[in-house]
């Protein structure tokens, strides 16, 4: 008997009791669907993280200085850091100090409560690959002369100055600053996101910040290949000043991305393994129904044997029937997984501000289908063996 004929026979048998077949498949459907959704969610999360990190620049190193306490004067100066870049052009391309400013921002009489205010250097904008929508970014002369100027994000410009912020003024802690430039939109121009920012010359920011210290620096690495070399270079320099690794931390964006990606991978793996348990349970369900089916069809097996079916023929018939049931469950599970992924993407988009696309991967689809078909073969084998071994006389006599 040809395999295609056996397959047609299996389909015919499955379709002749649809409700039972569907219930048999349910475990597989849920298992496959769950694996696909979980892997899809993990992919979506990784893509989202990668995108947001890339928009920040993966060739950036962030240096956080904790310092040896406020009393200690042992610290690196801004000039030291610029000198480091100047001395090592093969590793470092640029640097910008970052000074966080906490203060009240006012446009006219309105208070901007969620705006981030930082003091930065003249290269900061290029390093972060942002563009200028209008006007200019902070320049060295602004820093050198302590000019009270600032650059604002697109949100502030659109929301408070109808898109024409250049030349206007705003107040930080009561001091008036002239807006000299507006940044390109980088996020979605909403309150509190990366477009709700104000950049000042770092020298000015140092004066109005609480401590007056530069607490972090952002370095641009010359190329992606030398990120770890550049990191070592900066660490060596800082170690020579502080004499301990406890007072500073150098982090690279690509390292953070790698760490977070591998964490997401682990979570996805663990969740998939849990979902895969349902595949095993589904397999047992198939085995159960196949055993029932062998009992019910004892007479049929006897008739087929009397007509010349060999053990192999009967074995193949039942294994293929189990595998087909399981594979059909797998296909339905894939469909189910895709539908839920699509719905989940929309729900995430509408319920949260994150734009995470639940993207099932082809790999996971193939894997899930492969696993479900093999589960059918695996769990169908025992009942099929039982059927194949039936004695034809007993089977024919069975009512």
């Amino acid at each position, binding site marked *: *008997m040809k395999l295609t004929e056996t397959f047609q026979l299996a389909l015919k048998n499955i379709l002749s009791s649809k409700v039972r077949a569907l219930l048999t498949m349910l475990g597989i459907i849920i298992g496959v669907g769950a694996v696909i959704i979980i892997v899809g969610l993990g992919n979506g999360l990784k893509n989202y993280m990668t995108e947001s990190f890339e928009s920040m620049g993966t060739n950036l190193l962030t240096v956080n200085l904790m310092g040896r306490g406020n009393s200690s004067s042992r610290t690196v100066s801004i000039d030291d850091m610029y000198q480091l870049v100047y001395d090592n052009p093969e590793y470092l391309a640029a640097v910008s100090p970052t000074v966080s400013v906490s203060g009240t921002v006012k446009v006219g009489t309105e208070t901007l409560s969620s705006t981030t205010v930082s003091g930065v250097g003249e290269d900061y904008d290029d390093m972060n690959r942002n563009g200028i929508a209008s006007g200019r970014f902070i320049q060295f002369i602004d820093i050198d002369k302590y000019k009270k100027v600032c650059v604002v994000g697109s949100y502030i410009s659109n929301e408070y100055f109808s898109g024409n912020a250049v030349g206007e003024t705003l107040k930080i802690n009561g001091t008036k600053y002239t807006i000299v430039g507006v940044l390109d939109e980088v996020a979605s121009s909403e309150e509190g996101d990366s477009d709700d920012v104000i950049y000042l010359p770092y020298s000015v920011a140092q004066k109005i910040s609480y401590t007056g210290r530069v607490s972090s620096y952002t370095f641009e690495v010359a190329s992606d290949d030398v990120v770890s070399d550049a990191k070592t270079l900066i660490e060596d320099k800082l170690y020579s000043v502080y004499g301990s690794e406890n007072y500073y931390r150098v982090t690279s964006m690509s390292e953070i991305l790698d760490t977070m990606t591998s964490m997401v991978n682990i979570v996805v793996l663990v969740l998939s393994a849990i979902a895969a348990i349902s595949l095993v349970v589904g397999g047992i369900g198939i085995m159960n129904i196949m055993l029932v089916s062998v009992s019910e069809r004892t007479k*049929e097996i006897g008739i087929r044997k009397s007509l010349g079916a060999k053990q192999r023929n009967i074995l193949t018939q039942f294994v293929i029937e189990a595998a087909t049931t399981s594979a059909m469950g797998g296909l339905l599970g894939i469909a189910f997984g895709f539908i839920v992924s699509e719905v989940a993407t929309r729900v995430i988009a509408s319920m949260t501000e994150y734009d995470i696309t639940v993207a099932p991967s082809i790999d996971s689809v193939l894997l899930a289908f492969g696993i479900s078909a093999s589960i059918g073969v695996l769990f169908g084998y025992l009942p099929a063996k039982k059927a194949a071994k039936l004695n034809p*006389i007993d089977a024919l006599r069975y009512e």
Partner: protein
Amino acid sequence: MEQTPMEQTPLIEFKDIHKIYTIGDTELHVVDGVSFKIYKGEFVAIVGQSGSGKSTCMNIIGCLDKPSTGAYYLSGEDVSDMNDDALAEVRNKMIGFVFQQYNLLPKLTVKENVEVSMQYAGVSKKERTERSLKVLERVGLSTKLKSHPNQLSGGQQQRVSIARALAGDPSVILADEPTGALDSKTGIRVLELLQELHREGNTIVLITHDNAIAKKAERMIRLEDGKVVFDDAAEHYVHEERDDEGEEEDDE
């Protein structure tokens, strides 16, 4: 039928066949030293009451069961020691079964039922169709190809099962109480069909408990308590006036 049988290889040859079942400590000799030869083209009835061993003989002839001792030659080949799969192949190529309960597969159509044994034999789809159409026409059911067994009457179902037996072009048609589930009128028509098939050259072995039916055959082998008590032309059998009405119905 005029050839001298002695010069041919018998189609079926039983040589001192025993079938022994052990129940507890007692050995039950269901078939107790049966020997006979059946030649190509014969129409033989194996007849006996319940417990006479005729069903076991039928199972052995049909290669569904193996003798405990003794040898069974089918077309000159010893099949008494073959394994399950080899026996399956012998059944497929040489035996056409007609059962009392028809034993059609309920989910398949008439045509598909007739083609099952040819599927296992690996006959191509085209040839299967040709042969199934031919045998179904032979039994007068060419209009019922697409019907399912439950849409047919008992007589029609039995004719489908005869067509199925014929389809594989077997050496012998083995009919086990073929009229047992039919009313007498339909039963007679089925027997007539078997007689016609015999006249067309088919070898037929009919297993029955009913002497009247056995008499439709050419030759009768009568079994009692696992032994052959009569083996001759059916018309020579002198009916011992026993009360057949009180005879126990024997399904197997």
